[in-house]
């Protein structure tokens, strides 16, 4: 079973971290992962995309070639790319706090999540990516929630308990949002 | 020969005749290096990294391990060697073409790096083995096979003074220029060879000695005249001196 994921956002929105968290979780569950990132000037701002392939067997093609099973679009600038890069039958999760104009694409399901607004409510706009992560997990079941919570604890638990608390809430909120939005 | 072996001990292989031309300054410097190795008793753990050119033969006359490096790269080889085997003594033996033309970058960075290796640059101010072409150290106006009308500094730049550059490098702890035009200068040169090796044995840092030597063949002079020319012309521009000796103050640390 193989899942292709695309996580996109503007620099600083944490799309790369989102990709890494999925990878860490997958490894905890004994799955194989490959992460690729776009080249170029992204390190200095601009758009950034992390591609992740998760599989329970040896990964052949390590690339996501316009066949993403799930895409996260955090900013409007990469929304079009996410939609076009989705597989038929794929899912696009769009950050509706920032992406106000959307369009339909045949065979691609879209779910709008106001991730940035929710993140601000939870205490920091920076956890919008984690809100999205909650939605991804609920939508794809690619990983167990408990695994990702453990990854977050490993990452920030001991040193930053308040941050952990906020991110765990964000994760949960993302899940709930997806459930209600997808209905 | 047996008799002379009493002076030179085990390092110098007297049964191998030097292949240098008659009067070549390499013979003197090769002997001085061998004498110092013998005197320090470090023969068994000394490795010579030789450059390309006549100096490349120098190791054949000594009972020590040797590495013939690519043209100009001997200092980098010495650095890699010393890092992997710091207990051994490593010195490079290079001509002025090898050391200051093609290999200047490696030499300067090795000096600056300060890893305790020793570089000996034998400056006969031309490319000897390939038939007396201009080297960076060729004097202004000097006729060589590639400067038939004499070195034109506007075209070829100026004679390059190497130890002057290295004296400024903090990694270098002993830097000197010596000559071999008479017995007195040879004695001084012998002292610098010993100090340079001692500097490495004490692990203080990089050490370097340039030797101004004649190449009678390349200069197209008699042996006697080539030494006179060295004493008068070369030494005037390339003044023998100890540029840096930080061995004492380092001893206290």
């Amino acid at each position, binding site marked *: 079973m193989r899942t292709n994921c695309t996580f996109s956002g503007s620099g600083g929105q944490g799309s790369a971290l989102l990709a890494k968290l999925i990878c860490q979780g997958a490894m905890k569950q004994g799955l194989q992962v490959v992460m690729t990132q776009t080249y170029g000037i992204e390190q200095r701002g601009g758009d950034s995309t992390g591609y992740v392939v998760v599989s329970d067997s040896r990964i052949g093609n390590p690339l996501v070639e316009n066949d993403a099973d799930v895409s996260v679009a955090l900013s409007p600038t990469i929304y079009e790319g996410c939609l076009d890069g989705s597989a038929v039958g794929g899912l696009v999760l769009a950050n509706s706090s920032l992406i106000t104009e959307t369009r339909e694409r045949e065979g691609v399901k879209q779910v709008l999540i106001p991730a940035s607004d929710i993140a601000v409510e939870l205490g920091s706009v920076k956890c919008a990516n984690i809100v999205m992560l909650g939605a991804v997990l609920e939508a794809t079941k690619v990983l167990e929630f408990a695994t990702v919570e453990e990854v977050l604890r490993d990452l920030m638990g001991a040193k930053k308990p308040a941050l952990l608390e906020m991110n765990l809430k964000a994760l949960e909120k993302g899940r709930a949002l997806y459930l209600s939005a997808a209905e | *020969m047996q*008799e*002379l072996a*009493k*002076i*030179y001990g085990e390092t*110098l292989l*007297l049964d191998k*005749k*030097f292949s*240098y*031309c*008659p*009067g*070549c*300054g*390499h*013979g*003197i410097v090769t*002997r001085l290096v061998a004498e110092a190795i013998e005197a320090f008793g470090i023969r068994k753990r000394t490795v010579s990294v030789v450059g390309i050119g006549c100096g490349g033969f120098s190791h054949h006359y000594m009972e020590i391990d040797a590495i013939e490096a690519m043209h100009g790269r001997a200092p980098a080889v010495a650095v890699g060697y010393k890092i992997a085997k710091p207990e051994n003594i490593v010195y490079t033996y290079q001509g002025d073409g090898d050391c200051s033309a093609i290999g200047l970058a490696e030499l300067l960075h090795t000096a600056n790096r300060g890893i305790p290796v020793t570089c000996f640059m034998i400056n006969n101010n031309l490319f000897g083995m390939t038939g007396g072409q201009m080297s960076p150290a060729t004097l202004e106006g000097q006729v060589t096979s590639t400067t038939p009308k004499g070195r034109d500094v506007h075209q070829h730049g100026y004679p390059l003074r190497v130890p002057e550059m290295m004296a400024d490098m903090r990694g270098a702890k002993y830097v000197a220029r010596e000559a071999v035009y*008479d*017995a007195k200068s*040879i*004695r001084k040169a012998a002292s610098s060879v010993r100090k340079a090796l001692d500097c490495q044995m004490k692990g203080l840092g990089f050490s370097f000695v340039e030797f101004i030597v004649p190449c*009678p063949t390349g200069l197209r002079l008699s*042996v*006697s005249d080539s*030494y006179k020319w060295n004493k008068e012309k070369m030494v005037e521009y390339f003044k023998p001196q100890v540029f840096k000796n930080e061995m004492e103050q380092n001893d206290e640390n």
Partner: protein
Amino acid sequence: MKAKNKKHVICGERCKSCGLCVEACPKNTLAIGQTLNGQGYNIVEQIRPEDCVLCGLCRIVCPDVAIGVVESD
């Protein structure tokens, strides 16, 4: 103290008749001789061994390790 026994030696096979020792000798005891060695060079020889002061300068200047003063007990 027992005096060292010094002896002037020439290794003819190594000599390349460059003449540096001849010039360096303060007592003019050396000269390029007529005998050829295996390499085809005229071997340097002591022309006035009685004047040699065993100073060893010839050894120091020789580029071919062909000449010198050897000490023995």
